[in-house]
């Protein structure tokens, strides 16, 4: 059993076809995808750089990370929903693209890393947020996030070229 027929079906739905064949919709959705990426990954980068202690190590992490969260999530929603529409239009092509599979793996890893961080250390900021040097687990989460997102972006760019 392969998923390919399912992906072909998604791509051939009325919505998938109209996104793919529209002169305006596909470019607009792609543009939203890039703007969402700049906002979300841009602010994730700042968060990760603070977690690892590369920037603003003298500032309390809560003062850096928490206020950026709303916009970061907004950017992520933009990126994720526009990404879903792009996938809808090119599902079968994505299925055949090895780069796309790597992108999904790293996206999943980035998500799991964020989820694990949020459900453990993230919840208990009061315990560590006043410290200048963060616990090693927080620093590790920052490094993992950086690596995952660099991979997501690179494989994402690669997917677009493989598709042409």
């Amino acid at each position, binding site marked *: 059993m392969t998923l390919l027929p399912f992906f072909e079906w998604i791509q051939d739905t009325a919505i998938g076809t109209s996104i793919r064949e529209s002169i305006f919709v596909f470019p607009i959705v792609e543009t939203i995808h890039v703007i969402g990426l*700049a906002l979300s990954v841009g602010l994730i980068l700042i968060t990760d750089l603070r977690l690892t202690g590369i920037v603003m190590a003298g500032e309390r992490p809560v003062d850096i990370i928490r206020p950026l969260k709303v916009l970061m999530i907004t950017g992520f929603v933009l990126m994720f929903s526009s990404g879903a529409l792009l996938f809808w239009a090119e599902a079968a092509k994505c299925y055949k693209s090895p780069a796309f599979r790597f992108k999904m793996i790293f996206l999943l890893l980035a998500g799991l890393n964020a989820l694990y961080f949020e459900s453990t250390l993230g919840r208990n900021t009061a315990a560590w947020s006043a410290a200048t040097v963060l616990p090693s687990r927080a620093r590790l989460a920052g490094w993992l996030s950086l690596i995952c997102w660099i991979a997501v972006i690179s494989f994402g760019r690669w997917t677009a070229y493989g598709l042409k």
Partner: protein
Amino acid sequence: MTLIGLFQWFDNSWVGMTIRSSTYAFALIECFHLLGMVCLLGSLVAIDLRLLGFGMTRVPVTKVASALAPVTWIGLTTMIVTGTLLFSSEAMKCYQNEAFPWKMIFLFFGLLTYFTIHRWITRQDDSRIGPVWGKLVGFLSLALWFGVALAGRAIAFV
């Protein structure tokens, strides 16, 4: 040298021809262009939000800006180097492209703003930044840099 002559010079350059003839070079350079964009826009969004009165409001503007300046610089340098390489490989395409001049106009004013009023205001003490000035510069900076990104994305579509 005329404008078209300059574009032709880039198009015929060794670098441009090498990238054009390679299967992976363009995509690989684009990856770095995109990663540079994340550094540049991420740091500028954080700084400009702070100027607009959002984001890291507990940290002084000068601290946010000076701490993130290396991130902005890494992003800017990466983007300009990779951007020049990408441009060399399709300079004549850019010459005929309707979005390309817009990207360059936004980029010119983005850089001008960054090195003048943006630099000046992010070096002022918070108490000395007028309520309107900070917001104006933050908004202008965001509008110009996102203009660069939008026009840049449009190059591939128009």
